[in-house]
């Protein structure tokens, strides 16, 4: 059966009134959980899991998948409006998104984020349709050495992302990596740096740290300033992206779709790497890299497209191999099992209606989300009319809900406030917060992959170079690092030579 036949069959399933309704419900719920800080797609999906028991399996997955990719649309909202990343894949959006909001350009930021997400989401579903079986192999072959190499590359790219001092960025990354070691060591079972606190046994969570550094820290910093953030009066014209915005965003969106999709196939923390590959790439390609970090629309368009494309890619391991690539796909897998559908390599053959129906529904869902989110831009931008003295207590309220709601532990709220104070200090001492949280997310996977690789090879480091994929990724990382360090070094050497020449002459 050709791809076109399959697509036709899929759309026939997806476009039935009942399945359309489920897709819409999923999109609504997904957007809601995405926008609300601290509540993620996993919460929404698990909530509805029991409700899906009585449903047709295709309908169940259509609903749950819509919540999953729908939440990626909403995630950028809090990043742009309040500088609070709801998920690790929204952190990079804060960098330029919030600056744009402060410049009165929240509307274009949100609008481009929505459109970029739609285009990337749709392209990634196309990729899913055309390349699923092929890419499934990649998902499975990617082992610990490759993960390690990818994480190294990701960390090097972190350095590329900041407009400030590379040294300070690396130091913040090191801090993030250190924070990531707290908790139980999965390789030896030892507890590290927990000092008897059970809240730390699973490590310092991303959400308390991100909400603390970004959310609470920003509030404290703003309060300490002489002038409070100004109230905005958005008009219809300022809410829409300009033609220049569209021109600037087209390239980033296209590139990010590919990057996000490919990286999204990989399980776990890899998704967040796609956002900074995109950001670093756009910064490198831009004719005005100094605009990044100060409200460049490319810095929003690229990462937001990347994280949406990644959710499309994430469906590949689930649908083609039968292995969930994260906690949210794991719940979708449970929904399938409950209905007697065994997700695995044979799913496409045994259940073509379900397989293609879900994929087709993702096209439809992405379109629904765009239509849903665009009017919401107007609504959200008007939130910025609220005077800051009234806004910030409410922001603090939401951060508390976000951090307490993780596992009902007051310790997470404490961690958040501690990092809030740290974030305040960091802002004053000119350190960026993004590298800390991003390294916090990457750190555990970096360390585990490294040690797993050595366990696999019996202690030989050759494993990283003998395998083509990891060798290539590592080489890329080293090259990028050299590229970043060499120009300043070369300049200093040249300067020294010139000075020496002048003296000697």
């Amino acid at each position, binding site marked *: 059966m050709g791809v076109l036949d399959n697509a036709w069959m899929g759309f026939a399933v997806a476009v039935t009134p009942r399945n359309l309704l489920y897709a819409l419900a999923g999109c609504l719920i997904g957007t809601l959980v995405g926008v609300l800080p601290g509540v993620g797609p996993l919460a929404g999906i698990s909530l509805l899991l029991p409700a899906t028991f009585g449903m047709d399996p295709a309908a169940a997955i259509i609903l749950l998948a819509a919540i999953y990719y729908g939440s990626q649309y909403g995630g950028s909202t809090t990043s742009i409006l309040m500088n609070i990343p709801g998920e690790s894949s929204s952190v990079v959006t804060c960098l330029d998104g919030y600056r744009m909001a402060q410049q009165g350009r929240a509307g274009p930021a949100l609008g481009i984020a929505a459109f970029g997400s739609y285009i990337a989401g749709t392209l990634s579903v196309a990729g899913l349709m055309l390349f699923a079986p092929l890419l499934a192999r990649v998902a499975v072959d990617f082992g610990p050495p490759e993960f390690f190499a990818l994480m190294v590359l990701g960390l090097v790219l972190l350095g590329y992302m900041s407009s400030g001092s590379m040294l300070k960025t690396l130091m913040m990354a090191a801090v993030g990596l250190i924070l990531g070691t707290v908790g139980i060591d999965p390789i030896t079972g030892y507890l590290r740096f927990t000092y008897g606190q059970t809240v730390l*046994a*699973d490590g310092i969570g991303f959400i308390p740290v991100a909400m603390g550094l970004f959310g609470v820290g920003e509030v404290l910093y703003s309060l300490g300033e002489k002038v409070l953030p100004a109230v905005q009066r958005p008009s219809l014209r300022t809410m829409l992206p300009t033609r220049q915005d569209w021109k600037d965003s087209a390239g980033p969106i296209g590139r990010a779709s590919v990057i996000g999709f490919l990286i999204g196939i990989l399980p776990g923390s890899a998704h967040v790497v796609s956002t900074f590959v995109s950001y670093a790439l756009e910064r490198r390609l831009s004719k005005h890299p100094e605009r990044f970090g100060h409200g460049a629309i490319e810095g929003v368009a690229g990462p937001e497209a990347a994280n949406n494309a990644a959710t499309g890619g994430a469906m590949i391991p689930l649908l083609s191999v039968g292995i969930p690539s994260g906690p949210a796909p*794991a719940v979708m897998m449970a929904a399938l099992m409950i209905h007697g559908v065994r997700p695995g390599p044979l799913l496409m053959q045994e259940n073509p209606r379900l397989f293609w129906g879900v994929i087709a529904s993702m096209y439809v869902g992405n379109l629904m989300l765009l239509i849903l989110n665009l009017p919401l831009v107007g609504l959200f931008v008007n939130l910025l009319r609220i005077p800051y003295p009234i806004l910030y207590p409410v922001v603090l309220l939401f951060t508390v809900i976000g951090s307490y709601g993780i596992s009902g532990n007051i310790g997470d709220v404490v961690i958040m406030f501690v990092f809030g104070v740290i974030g305040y200090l960091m802002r004053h001492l000119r350190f960026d917060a993004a590298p800390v949280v991003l390294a916090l997310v990457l750190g555990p996977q970096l360390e585990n992959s490294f040690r797993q690789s050595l366990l696999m090879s019996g202690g030989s480091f050759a494993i990283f170079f003998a395998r083509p994929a990891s060798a290539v990724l590592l080489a890329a990382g080293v090259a990028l690092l050299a590229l970043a360090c060499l120009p300043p070094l070369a300049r200093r050497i040249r300067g020294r030579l010139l000075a020496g020449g002048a003296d000697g002459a």
Partner: protein
Amino acid sequence: MKHRVFVAVMGVAAASVLFATWAAAQTYPTKPVTLVNPFPPGGTLDLHARAVATAIGPFLGQPMVVENKAGAAGAAGTQSMLAAKPDGYTLLQGWTGLSLIPHVDALMGRPQLFKREDFIPIARLTASPPLLAVNAESPWKTLADLVAEAKRRPNELRHSSGGLYGISHIPLELLKLESGFQMRHVPFTGGAPALTALLGKNVDASICYPGVCLPQVRAGKIRALVVFGAARLADYPDVPSVKELGSTAEFYGWMSIMAQKGTPPEVVTTLRGALAKLVREPSYKAVMMQIGETMAYLDGEEFARAWDTEYRKMEEVLKAVVKK
């Protein structure tokens, strides 16, 4: 006059106390019961907990609600359940890890988060033996093949697990202890990455539970060499059991319902009765079949004895396995 008032008041007080006691003892449960699942949503334990909660309503007279409290490989949720009042309104979805975690803690020199004595086992519902799997492209067709290879190349073969000292690690350690071969252990965080490692040929062998493995076996991606039970599984008719092969390395991933120590006996009896009826309920049995779990009902006292035996056995096994 005062005397009469005093007697009247005492009479009312006494009657209220009697009424309250009667009410409480009479009618457990009088409000919904919470079943704590110490793992994230979507896993086998979660599906089981939800199946129990859905089907047990009519037998208990009150709805049962599943609460997910994940963390520390199941320890966090377990601890929180034990901290709740032992009144029968907060129960635990128990799993084999309860026989492993306390010993690991003790052997690693840290305070035990919980012990066998903290629980009153209500009933065991399922017990599924896992399978030892290798990649379908590897040359080993039987367990003997694999063991021979491992002995020929000590510590060169590798096996993955979903967690150090967990239920997908220990079964292979049992085989190692029994047959005396060595294999490197590569721990992953979760069953999915462990299985992926096997599929990608990044490790040579892995322990896998029947519901999860089946699609991969049927698609010809992995091959099961042995099942860690006393008999063959219906879904895997060609896979010999350890008993057939003359091994004593039996292991079961069981699921049970637990209450805290100190729960009133009447409450325990009510729960045992409800569960006894639950296991005969067709909708519950159907779900167990869907997720590939083997029904193995053991009522409270029998289960307590079986669990004691396993608990002690695991202590010995872990003493040999845990590295300090």
